[in-house]
């Protein structure tokens, strides 16, 4: 029972800040699967270009992944670095720019409306630049956790480049000033999936996985080698895409495979030495996400070798299998944790994490999520649009279940009592 809490130096944001990001991510997660139902025909052969499939891809990357990562990072980073954010209002401003910006950008892609795309990209870039500033300020003031800070700085650089390139690509749809739009779109994808989101996910894993498993964080030369390999992978992939050199891209895939294996080895050692052995459903998702992480460079190599569905599968495994699975695994752990800090029991005493565990919706989400990803992968291999639409329907059921889980937490938070 809490007798006295001096929270003057607390690094906890008001619950409404991270949860507004999580709520819109959950809503756009539902929209993603609906969009995929209607874009199934394009999706199985998607290689880029404005249209429904590109809109669906950005529903996932900007709407679901970025929104979740920004909301989680703004709360978790100050806790991890023990340095509070400079102020709360910039976090709300990030949301006010990013949420409508994402909606406009995605609408513009679906409707092939260049004006909406440029306006959305502008607002998203402004919001994410402000987030990048908050991230940089927190990392600059942190004195501990050099490895996590290194991942954070690398993700920061990737985010700034990602935004500049994303804005240029949106403008290019109107002005046509880029010599190689497709090549730069690939660089944009690499910066987003592996630079910003990937490095942020790998870095925060060095805090979150030990925190959940009650274990020491990976450290020493092997952990630094993991960072060096991951950063080198992103750098090599960008150079390969910029110069249009398949051999360099293949080298990046090789580096990426080594980085993934080393990360998995570090995480396995972390779990093995942890005091908590039963990690629940969320770590089933984490393990599947890790498998997808290791498979991603192999699909990249397959695409480079000329295997038809390789490129689309590479995107699905990286964005859906690795990043989306990992983020939803983490979100289902941290949402109850954050909520428990803001709610008390009606009969007195603090709320317990178990008070927020809605097992049924999370089980439905996990089953549907895995089935949908497997269905989409098969649909890509067979180039079968009806199968992709069916898989998207299953994914939609999972997204609704996850939305139900999050809505339950938000409802409890709103009442302040459980």
């Amino acid at each position, binding site marked *: 029972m809490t007798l006295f809490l001096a929270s003057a130096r607390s690094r906890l944001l008001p619950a409404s800040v991270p949860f507004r990001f999580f709520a819109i991510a959950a809503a756009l997660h539902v929209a993603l699967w609906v969009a995929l139902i209607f874009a199934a025909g394009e999706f199985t052969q998607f290689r880029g270009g404005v249209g429904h499939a590109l809109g669906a891809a950005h529903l996932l990357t900007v709407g679901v992944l970025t929104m979740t990562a920004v909301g989680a990072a703004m709360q978790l980073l100050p806790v991890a670095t023990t340095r509070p954010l400079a102020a709360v209002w910039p976090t709300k401003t990030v949301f006010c720019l990013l949420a409508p910006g994402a909606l406009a950008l995605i609408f513009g892609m679906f409707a092939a409306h260049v004006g909406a795309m440029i306006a959305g990209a502008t607002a998203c870039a402004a919001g994410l630049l402000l987030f990048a500033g908050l991230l940089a300020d927190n990392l600059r003031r942190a004195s*501990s956790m050099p490895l996590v800070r290194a991942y954070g700085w690398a993700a920061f650089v990737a985010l700034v480049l990602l935004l500049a390139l994303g804005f240029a690509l949106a403008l290019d749809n109107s002005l046509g000033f880029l010599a190689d739009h497709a090549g730069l779109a690939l660089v944009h994808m690499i910066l987003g999936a592996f630079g910003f989101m990937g490095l942020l996910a790998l870095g925060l894993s060095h805090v979150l996985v030990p925190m959940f498993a009650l274990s020491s964080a990976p450290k020493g030369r092997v952990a630094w080698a993991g960072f060096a390999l991951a950063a080198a992978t992103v750098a090599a992939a960008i150079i390969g895409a910029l110069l249009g050199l398949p051999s360099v891209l293949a080298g990046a895939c090789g580096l990426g495979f080594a980085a993934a294996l080393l990360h998995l080895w570090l995480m396995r050692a972390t779990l093995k030495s942890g005091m908590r052995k039963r990690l629940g459903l969320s770590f089933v998702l984490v393990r599947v996400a890790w498998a997808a992480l290791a498979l991603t460079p192999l699909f990249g190599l397959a695409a480079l070798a000329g295997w038809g569905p390789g490129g689309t599968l590479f995107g699905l495994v990286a964005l859906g299998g690795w990043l989306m699975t990992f983020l939803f695994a983490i979100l289902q752990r941290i949402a109850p944790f954050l909520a428990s800090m803001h709610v008390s029991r009606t009969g007195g005493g603090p709320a*317990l994490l178990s008070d927020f565990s809605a097992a049924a919706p999370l089980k439905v989400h996990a089953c549907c999520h895995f089935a949908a990803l497997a269905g989409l992968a098969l649909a890509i291999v067979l180039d079968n649009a009806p199968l992709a639409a069916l898989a998207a329907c299953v994914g939609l059921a999972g997204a609704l279940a996850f939305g139900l889980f999050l809505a339950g937490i938000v409802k409890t938070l709103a009442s302040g009592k459980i």
Partner: protein
Amino acid sequence: MMKGADPDAPRLWREGDRLHVDVRGLCCPEPLVAVLRLIDGGEAGDGLVAHVSQEPLLLYPELNARGWRYRLVAPRGDDEVALEMSRPRA
């Protein structure tokens, strides 16, 4: 567990019948893990005082789940607060 042998190890000492642990300066989530090792391993007995750099937010849900009572003692300096924890009487 004394500092010196391992720079990442927390410093332990006793004041009266109460075990104290200094986890200041350890990287996240080491303070959380060090305190829970003492509690779950039985070394803490019925009570423990943790000296931490800042309010240990990550620790609260774990203590709540174990039914431990806790209170944050007023800051002793710019870089220290103490968390008094006690096992509830059966």
